[in-house]
């Protein structure tokens, strides 16, 4: 088993809004290993992005990390001060956001944006910096780097913009990269290109990649291990193959059944209901109001993750009593 790079333990990130406390991430624990591709999957609002922002400690107001431990390379990130965190961001841990058209500053050209990142963390000469920028743009596959680096974000297509965003995130060769739905706002044809690029770069640079998505297809293609989140909780952690073959959590099974497949004429399953209100989440297991297997116990106490087989954890009381269909059934 590879070394652990990031270990999140009992993370609670709450948003203190006027309507009440939104428990966006509530008692989340998982780890990311060196060099692996981990999938973080769940519906919108399940706390995937907030988890990533918590690791970087850039949770927007009125959000706050209330409790927990985020160990990165053996150091607790929550104990670091703001200056120390600034040095970590971009350099050790970086993130790519969903929408490249809004994650780039519209008034600076690409060269300036990349130079800013390079110069923020290290002192290098002008020529060296220029060379690095061109290298980076070549790395992410932007043709005519020398001409295009003088252009502004609005002159790039969506896919190219995301490449710029990736180049910027990779400028300092971070050891951990969060990709927060990096392809959701892109055309399908571009999606595959960007995913291939991420995979290739991950191998080339030897970093760990956390793929945040709600797309089970991307998870299957990109990751070796998956963390399934629901309403701020982790419900299942497993190797990707394992998860697709033998999902143990009813929610995971429903997620898999909601993926359209061409090779089988099958009605798409819809997960009934909506993600719960996180100000007053359901008692016990947060999924129980939408779960067809729920029993009385599910409403009382939240289940904890238990290891049902090596490397496969599930937070469900009923996992022994139910048999769920995986992707191929």
């Amino acid at each position, binding site marked *: 088993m590879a070394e652990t790079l990031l270990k999140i333990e009992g993370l609670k990130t709450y948003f203190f809004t006027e309507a009440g406390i939104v428990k966006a991430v509530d008692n989340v624990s998982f780890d990311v290993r060196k060099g692996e591709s981990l999938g973080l999957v769940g519906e919108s609002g399940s706390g995937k992005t907030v988890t990533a*922002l918590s690791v*970087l400690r*850039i949770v*927007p*107001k009125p959000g706050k990390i209330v409790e927990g431990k985020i160990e990165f390379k053996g150091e607790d990130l929550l104990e670091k001060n703001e*200056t120390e965190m*600034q*040095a*970590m*961001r*971009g*350099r050790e841990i*970086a*993130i790519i*956001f969903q*929408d490249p058209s*809004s*994650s*780039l*500053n*519209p*008034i*600076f*050209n690409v060269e300036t944006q990349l130079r*800013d*990142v390079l110069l*923020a*963390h290290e002192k290098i000469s002008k020529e060296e910096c220029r060379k690095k920028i061109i290298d980076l743009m070549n790395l992410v596959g932007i043709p005519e780097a020398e*001409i295009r680096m003088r*252009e*502004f974000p*609005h*002159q790039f297509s969506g896919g190219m913009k995301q490449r710029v*965003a990736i180049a*910027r*995130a990779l400028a300092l060769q971070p050891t951990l990269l969060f990709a927060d739905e990096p392809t959701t706002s892109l055309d399908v044809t571009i999606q595959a290109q960007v995913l291939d690029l991420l995979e290739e770069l991950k191998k080339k640079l030897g970093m760990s990649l956390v793929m945040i998505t709600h797309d089970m297809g991307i998870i299957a293609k990109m990751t070796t291990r998956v963390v399934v989140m629901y309403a701020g909780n982790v419900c299942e952690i497993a190797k990707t193959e394992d998860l697709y073959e033998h999902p143990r959590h009813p929610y995971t099974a429903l997620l898999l059944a909601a993926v359209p497949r061409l090779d089988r004429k099958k009605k798409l399953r819809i997960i009934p209901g909506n993600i719960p209100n996180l100000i007053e989440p359901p008692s016990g297991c947060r999924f129980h109001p939408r779960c067809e297997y729920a029993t009385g116990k599910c409403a009382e106490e939240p289940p904890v993750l238990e290891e049902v087989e090596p490397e496969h954890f599930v937070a469900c009381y009923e996992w022994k009593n139910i048999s769920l269909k995986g992707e191929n059934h």
Partner: protein
Amino acid sequence: MTPMNPENNKPNAGYKRRSASQWAVAWRRFRRNKAGVAGLIIVLAVVFVGIFGDALAPYPAFPNPKALTPFYNGDVRTPPSSKYLLGTDVLGTDVLSDILHGTKYALYVGVVVTAITMAIAIVVGSIAGYFGSWIDNVLMRLTEVFLVFPSLLFILIFVRVFTLGAGAGASFNFLGISIPIGLTIVIFVLAVFNWPGDARMIRGEFMRIRELEFIEAEKALGASNRRIIFRHILPNILSSIIVVASLTIAYAILLEAGVSFLGFGDVNTMTWGQILENNFSDMRIVWWAEVFPGLAILITVFGFNLLGDGLSDALNPRLRD
């Protein structure tokens, strides 16, 4: 799209990619706006007169406008003629010369009031807008204090008290230019009461930009607060600041003229408002000494306003409707 040469798949030789920076785009848009261009021409003309007005004026500047003896050969209240193109006023000074000499004061007032106003507004607005919470609360309450002051009354009192303290006609040297102290005090007082509105605007802009995703992205890349404020947010609202600044210049010139006209300006500096004030009592006779300085104010203020509107259309095209 770049015109490509089909043979080598490179951009055609001699093709120059049009610059597409925000400023180049804005300039192209500005040039198409006739009113804005007219404003720019008026402003440039006023600046020209401001710089060379002393040399262009047919008569020298009046040393002490409150001196009671007629200055120009006893030609008091002469109607416009070939000798005095715009006539002479109650003090016997040539109105055209007064207007030309006064242009530099109008610009001095406009530019310096705006510079001070914007400096305070940017500092207060950015800090309040960026940090929010209690800092925002404290600064906004402070802003409101200045906003609810009956500012005109305070301007009148301060200008009177301070100009009397400085002594009549006192001036100081700045880069070889003699600048009247009284007028400078007027400027400072005007600026101190003028910044709250602009500070609120800048605060609002900061709050808007702060929430955009690229700020989050910059944070995720390790940018400090200082870097985000100066490097990422301020340049993004620079266009709004420029628009407001050009409108503030117009407003400041108008305000100073008003204060002087009411008799609370610097009586030792012949600003346009001061000419109006001096001749007000004899207005029915020397209409030319009221109408022409008034026109000078009108044209200048109009020019800066047109320029501001033109800039606004060019820099913030989305705000047009």
